[in-house]
């Protein structure tokens, strides 16, 4: 008998999120119709409390619960990103749910559970745990995507995501089963040890690595596993789209890095070229198709595919520098993309009206403040110097060059130039086209303002003073 030692501090943020999620759900029937938004603030407080509890967690580094759960700098940094994503998403959705008359506080519970799932994925040292976290995240996201139950597009979005997501979960499980058959363990460190010995069936291990790679590539939506993304992103409620475009992506990359760089580094010659091709294809497809999208949600969907491609470049570098650049990029991308989706939430009307790029015509003269903030996010997504997007891309391409991935860096730079076209077209619409809408019923309530301030300030901070965060990601990448 070796009973797992219980260490509450090591799982504290996850615990806080789960408990607050349950409290929000249980409190819902006792709260009057008018006060339901207060539960949103409760959920927001929950994410802040979880962020504070990262401190005791960070003081309990090491492996816990029979080596299933690992606490290291990498984990703490990613948890910080996840909690930030959850906090901004809650702020964006409060007003949205009121406007769409969907004020069911279960939304916040699902969001908190999904975030708890992401924290589990980042802290797992064991494939079974990764799978549990992945499923918690996925199931909660399927439901949130279909949250507008009376809307056919939202139903389509949830169903497509659910069916394809189940397939990818099955791939992941097959991968786990095969790796267990080949090495006799599902623990990442034990797998790495087993692979260093020579008696392993290398083809079986490669097959399982391929299956796990496919499943995770689906979750982070990189080409050629990206086909579901535009429809799912378009149909889901806008704040949920924002969440899906950053949360599951960051969590998926967290697992990709952890699994492949901890468990499979000894067979890198077998998966390295696959990552190379995925990265190149994703950057090209995402950026080129985004150019012709009239709907801003679809445009941002393809843009999110393209950004996953840049993170994949950092993955292909398979160096500490690459991991550090990827972590920095995930934080920068989360902030600017959530900001962009918060703006889409503000401009769009009930039931997803006004979500075309041309609907932004004249925003610059009618609402100069909003237009300036949206311009900041678009410039940052495009990667203009002085913004978070530029710093992130710079670190990634530097890591790629250091690992001698010259062609990937070239493809990255060329596709970045292409991306200027569609990001700047939004700015052109806002400042150089005549308004055909007064934007008079655009309401900007406190929570949305708060969300915009956090993401805009973060985008500028990471763009102008990236060194402190970069130092943090550098320590986080060392293992």
């Amino acid at each position, binding site marked *: 008998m070796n009973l*797992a030692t219980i260490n509450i501090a090591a799982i504290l943020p996850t615990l806080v999120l789960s408990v607050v999620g349950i409290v929000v759900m249980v409190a819902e029937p006792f709260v009057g119709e008018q006060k339901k938004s207060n539960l949103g603030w409760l959920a927001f407080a929950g994410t802040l409390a979880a962020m504070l509890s990262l401190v005791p967690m960070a003081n309990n580094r090491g492996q816990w619960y029979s080596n*299933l759960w690992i606490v290291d700098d990498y984990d703490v940094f990613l948890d910080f990103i996840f909690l930030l994503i959850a906090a901004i998403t809650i702020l964006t959705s409060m007003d949205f749910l009121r406007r769409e008359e969907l004020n069911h506080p*279960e939304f916040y*519970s699902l969001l908190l559970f999904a975030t708890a*799932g992401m924290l589990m994925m980042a802290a797992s040292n064991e494939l079974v745990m990764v799978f549990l976290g992945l499923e918690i995240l996925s199931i909660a996201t399927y*439901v949130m995507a279909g*949250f507008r*139950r*009376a809307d056919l597009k939202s139903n389509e979005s949830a169903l497509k995501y659910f069916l394809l997501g189940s397939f990818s979960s099955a791939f992941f499980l097959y991968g786990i089963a095969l790796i267990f058959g080949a090495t006799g363990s599902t623990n990442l460190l034990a797998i790495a040890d087993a692979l260093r010995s020579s008696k392993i069936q290398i083809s079986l291990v490669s097959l399982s690595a391929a299956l796990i790679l496919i499943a995770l590539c689906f979750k982070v939506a990189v080409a050629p596993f990206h086909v579901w993304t535009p429809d799912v992103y378009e149909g889901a409620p806008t704040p949920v789209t924002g969440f899906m475009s950053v949360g599951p992506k960051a969590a998926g990359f967290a697992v990709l890095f952890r699994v492949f760089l901890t468990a499979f580094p000894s067979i890198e010659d077998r998966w390295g070229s696959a990552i190379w091709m995925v990265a190149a294809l994703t950057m090209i497809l995402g950026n080129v198709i985004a150019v012709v999208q009239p709907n801003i949600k679809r445009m941002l969907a393809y843009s999110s595919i393209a950004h996953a491609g840049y993170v994949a470049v950092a993955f292909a570098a398979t160096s500490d520098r690459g991991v550090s650049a990827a972590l920095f990029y995930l934080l920068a991308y989360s902030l600017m993309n959530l900001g962009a989706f918060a703006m889409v939430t503000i401009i769009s009307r009930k039931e997803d009206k006004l979500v075309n790029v041309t609907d932004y015509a004249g925003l610059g003269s009618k609402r100069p403040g909003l237009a300036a903030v949206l311009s900041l996010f678009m410039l940052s997504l495009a990667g203009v110097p002085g913004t978070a997007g530029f710093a992130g891309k710079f670190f990634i391409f530097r890591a790629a060059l250091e690992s001698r991935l010259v062609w990937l860096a070239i493809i990255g730079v060329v596709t970045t130039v292409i991306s200027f076209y569609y990001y700047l077209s939004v700015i052109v619409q806002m400042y150089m086209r005549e308004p055909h809408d007064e934007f008079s019923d655009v309401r900007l309530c406190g929570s949305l303002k708060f969300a915009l301030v956090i993401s805009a300030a973060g985008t500028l901070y990471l763009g102008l003073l990236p060194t402190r965060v970069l130092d943090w990601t550098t320590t986080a990448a060392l293992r």
Partner: protein
Amino acid sequence: MLELILFYTFGAIAVISGILVITRHNVVHSAAFLGATLFAVAGIFLTLHAEFVAGVQVIVYVGGILVLFVFVIMLIAVERSVHERQYNKQWTIALITSAILIVEIAYGLYRGRDSLVLPAVVPPAAAAAGGNSEQVGTALYTSYLLPFEIASILLLVAIVGAVVLSKKRTPAEE
């Protein structure tokens, strides 16, 4: 020897009733044969000394999923579906493509048989340690305590999700 006979018997039952599941016109018969398949697979697990998996197979698949199927059949019109044409007009093309696929996979397995050797079969040590179910239980409550607890959150999320999607619509949503 007896084990081998049992294994092939259960295997034959599973395959034959599996074919009958998809060829019967009456869905109730299909459901019954599906039950037979599932029981036969549980039997195969038993011959492989995996009592726990066999038990789970019966409880989850026969007790849960099959009953769900029967409930759905109860809710739809069975009489009409008996007389309806089955959706298998293109069965010749399907047969040819599946045959090609089978040949392809078989050839691949044949060519790669040297590299895909599984580790030698370990004789079941579970019996010595007090049996399969006991071992699973011990593992779940000791070293796998945390995932065991986390699975409860997974179930909770699934329940909340199902309730959110199916509860009565508010007037605003109509």
